[in-house]
């Protein structure tokens, strides 16, 4: 919902203001992107609206429309915002559109549905003449006039004898939904012969595919702007940047305890490129992508470290650090819907941010498909009404969920007994609300509130860097001819260190049973390799060697995680001290 609203806000700003106005708005808001430019003629509208949209809320949007003269002729009819005659309403138009469709149906019957369907099939706009040809024997003009009057469609072009209408891009989903509802009523009437038709399946996927296209466009626009204006700076930044500098940046911002979660989140973004990990003699079969789970009691900053750090949160003055256009926020989404929309992502690698992962397990039977999703396997989900898939899921997750934390260990609030299988497939991090953590959270909240923390420039640098690395390592067409793709090379020394950690951990556990699987080691290695991608510009080699500092963090994570999973059978500090002495 948040992401959808952000997208709408971006589109609304783009439609309502010229680039010169956007520049003035952005400059007044003190956004670094605008401060780097001399005038509005130098801004990229997509990037500009994105930068502004991320930094304002509805109140800010209202203020902008009050202070700046928007285009009188611009129209926007979204789910959350409406713009007509230069006036902004902080409420959507979808209800009006639904009513409009119903009124048209009442007056013109199914012909109006046919008209809308033809417009939709044509990609959103259609001319009067074509509609006349489409709907033989029906004069579409009265229907179109009515639909326009009710705000369902708008004139998109008027020539001397040519007339074209469109369904505004932001209104397409609601029109689709309405048409689909009509179709469903009809199919129910026609009945039951068509038993088991997947309700809304097609639309979910279509909608999601549209969203993916939008996200691709967002990444492309971001990269274009980066290459045009900031490339030299990013490369220079990249030459001094690594896991240690990221860690010190985050430590300065959030303190010595809180920083580690954000470090994991950002490192995971580097890993998203899913770069191949090699060793001196060949392939390892591994790659840098992994899923992240932050769990713990409510209020321990889990959402902040994932959602806010990656997507940004204007209200909390937190700019985005994640790869643009590669994170899909899944707040409020059911697991079933997730499994359905997952089809649209087959063959693509995105990061799904799930803030309340617990909710995915409210319904039985979700563990298995999700387990497959975590393993990047082939998903097939069947109910008595529909069959989803099979399709191969190649994306990753950043999830948060609540657990009850005890003095030692924790217990998940998810009832499904197989949930641990899911946990086992992610890089998990327990949040315990210790006094120290509490103080750090309170302090950083206060510093953010009073504007003592200025993340703007740092965030922009990191985001530019991670976006460029992602683009290079995924061989994005905009950069593939400029920078070579490099795999990450793991060394025997790295394996040796992991082995030593394993021995130290096992020697610390007195029980005969080990409560964590070998996958934990795999996660640690993937983490180290993802973190090493930060060194891309530091090395002239054809590969990126594993960074030693990254290995230390990986071992730290391995030991701490093993301790949590073993219900703190050993003190991680003791093991770490022994390893790094």
């Amino acid at each position, binding site marked *: 919902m948040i992401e959808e609203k952000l997208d709408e806000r971006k589109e609304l700003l783009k439609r309502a203001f010229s680039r*010169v106005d956007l520049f003035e708005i952005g400059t007044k808001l003190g956004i670094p992107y605008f401060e780097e430019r001399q005038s509005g003629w130098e801004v990229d509208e997509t990037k500009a609206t994105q930068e502004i949209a991320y930094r304002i809320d509805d109140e800010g949007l209202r203020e902008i429309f009050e202070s700046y003269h928007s285009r009188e002729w611009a129209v926007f009819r979204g789910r959350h915002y409406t713009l007509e005659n230069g006036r902004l309403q902080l409420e959507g138009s979808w209800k009006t559109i639904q009513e409009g469709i119903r009124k048209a149906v009442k007056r013109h019957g199914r012909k109006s549905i046919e008209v809308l369907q033809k417009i939709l099939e044509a990609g959103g706009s259609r001319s009067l003449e074509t509609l006349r040809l489409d709907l033989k024997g029906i004069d579409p003009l009265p229907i179109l006039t009515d639909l326009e009057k009710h705000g369902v469609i708008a004139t998109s072009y008027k020539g001397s004898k040519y007339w074209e209408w469109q369904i505004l891009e932001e209104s397409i989903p609601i029109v689709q939904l309405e048409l689909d509802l009509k179709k469903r009523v009809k199919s129910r009437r026609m009945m039951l012969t068509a038993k088991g038709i997947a309700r809304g399946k097609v639309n979910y996927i279509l909608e999601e595919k549209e969203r993916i296209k939008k996200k691709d466009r967002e990444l492309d626009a971001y990269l274009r702007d980066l290459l045009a204006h900031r490339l030299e700076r990013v490369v220079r930044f990249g030459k001094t940047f690594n896991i240690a500098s990221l860690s010190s940046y985050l430590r300065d911002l959030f303190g010595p305890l809180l920083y580690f979660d954000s470090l994991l989140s950002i490192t995971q973004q580097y890993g998203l490129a899913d770069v191949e990990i090699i060793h001196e003699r060949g392939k390892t079969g591994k790659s840098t992508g992994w899923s992240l789970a932050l769990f713990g009691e409510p209020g321990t900053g889990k959402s902040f470290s994932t959602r806010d750090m990656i997507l940004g949160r204007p209200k909390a003055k937190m700019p985005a650090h994640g790869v643009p256009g590669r994170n899909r926020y899944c707040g409020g989404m059911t697991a079933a819907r997730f499994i359905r929309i997952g089809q649209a992502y087959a063959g693509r690698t995105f990061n799904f941010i799930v803030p309340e992962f617990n909710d995915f397990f409210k319904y039985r039977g979700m563990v298995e498909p999700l387990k497959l999703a975590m393993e990047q396997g082939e998903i097939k989900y069947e109910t008595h009404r529909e069959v989803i898939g099979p399709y191969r899921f190649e994306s990753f997750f950043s999830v948060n969920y609540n657990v009850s934390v005890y003095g030692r260990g924790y217990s998940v609030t998810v009832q499904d007994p197989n949930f641990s299988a899911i946990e086992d497939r992610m890089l998990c991090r327990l949040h315990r609300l210790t006094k120290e953590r509490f103080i750090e959270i309170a302090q950083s909240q206060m510093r953010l509130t009073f504007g003592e923390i200025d993340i703007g420039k740092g965030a922009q640098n990191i985001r530019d860097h991670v976006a460029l690395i992602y683009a290079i390592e995924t061989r994005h067409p905009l950069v593939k001819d400029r920078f070579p793709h490099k795999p990450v090379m793991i060394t025997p020394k790295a394996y040796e260190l992991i082995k030593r950690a394993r021995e130290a951990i096992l020697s610390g556990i007195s029980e005969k049973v080990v409560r964590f699987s070998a996958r934990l080691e795999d996660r640690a290695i993937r983490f180290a390799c993802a973190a090493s991608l930060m060194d891309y510009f530091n090395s002239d080699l054809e590969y990126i060697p594993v960074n030693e500092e990254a290995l230390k963090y990986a071992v730290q994570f391995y030991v701490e995680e093993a301790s949590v999973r073993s219900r703190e059978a050993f003190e991680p500090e003791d093991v770490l001290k022994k390893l790094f002495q």
Partner: protein
Amino acid sequence: MRVLTVSWAVNERQRLKPFTEAMEAASILCLADSERRRPSIMRSRGEEITHLSKLHYPFWAVPHGERCLIIDGLNISSDTISVWSLPDVKSFTEDLKQASRDFDIYRKVISRHTETFKDFKSASEVHIQALIGDKEILEVILELLSQEMHSEELLMEGLSPLLRLDKRDAVERSEAFLDVWKSNLSDIEALRYAINVLNEEMERHREKTMTEIEELQKRYEMKILELRPLVKKKIDRLMKERKSKIKKALKDQEKRLGAALKDQDKLEREMMRLEKRIENYLARKRTRGRRDASQLDVKIEICQNRMKETARRIEVISRIAETIRMEGDETVKTIEDDYEKMIEKEREKVEHLEASMEAETSELRKEIEDPEAEASSIISQIEHLLKRKEMVIDELKGTTVPAKVEEAILIRIPFYVARYKAGERERLKVFPPVVAVRRGGFVLKLKRAIKPTLGSRIRLLLHPRWDFLEQRVFAKFEEKLHEDASLMEEVNRAVELNNLLEASHFKDGVVAGTSELMKDGWITGSERKQMLDEYAS
């Protein structure tokens, strides 16, 4: 802070013997002395040199990307940059965007803006104090930056006391230039954007018009497609009808003609019979002689009369036949003409549609061509402004030096100042940097020999290093000294603080230097003695 200090005197390329510091001290003293006003008829008291100082003229090289800007550290020079403000690009592009959905509005917008980019909205001049824009001075600075960069040093303190703009001031001044530069770049972006938007909109309206044309053609083609078989059918029917009508007309004609011809044939046969009968009568008349002759003559006459009558009747019938033929032909022709007209009319139905289609599509093409021609002219106008703005950027680039500096560098160009005093009157004289020429050559020796005064001989040895720098910087500096009391005060203070006439190292230099100059024949022994007595004792 990085400081680049230049030498006051440099060797001419052909000069082999180095021009030493001692020689510099001796020469400048000789020059300063030669400029001293001696007592004369007009002037009762002669001047004395009270002070001689080596000062530096400061220039700042402030970074500007891969180049640098030169700022006059004494804030004497200035440069003026022409600034042309753009027409209202925003309202132009916004108008176009608004017209994006309506061809009629687009046409009006284009017509409204045919003059918008004809010229810049206004022209003004930005005066940037201390900015050096003089190409020749910039060339000198470039030469210094590229050749003498190795001589840069780190000067922590004790900078030239003559410095009216410090590093921060210099950077500030360069920012005024930078503002103009950026504003021009921004204007270029604006004009490019205007061209892009106009191109896009042109393209959009052309595309829509093409769609409209296509639809129109499709509409007509469908009509034609529907009409063509109907027309063909009708034509076929008409042709068939025509054929049958002609056939019938020909048949009627034939029938009537047949009857006439039959009568004619009968009469012709009658004629032949009558002719034969007459021949018979004539033969009988020949054989019988006079017997029955008159009877036979009567018979012959009767026959002849009957023949005449028959011939008349044949002629009548012939005329009738001719009339029948003509009438028949006429009927056929009328049928043919009538049907041809009907067929043509049918054919015209399709042709008329084709012509309408052609006319309407041409009209639409013309509709888009007119604003397109206007839009192209607007683009040419914008491109012209763009070119001019790019030229401004080139000119501004010309105000910079193609040398990259990491931070602002202070470039110090040395000069000597002598203070002369005659009673209460004091004056200052500036000696800009020089080039020491080679010692020999017959002509030079000759010139040296015929130069009567020491000053004129030293001027043969030391040539101005940069003529234009003397004229445009140091001459201006001397002028400014007279106009600007505070500058005069600053220079006087600097001169007093740094009086070489009181410095022992300078005096030592003069001693050694005059000896060198004497060896080289630039100064005589007595002149040397006089100089030493006066200044180095």
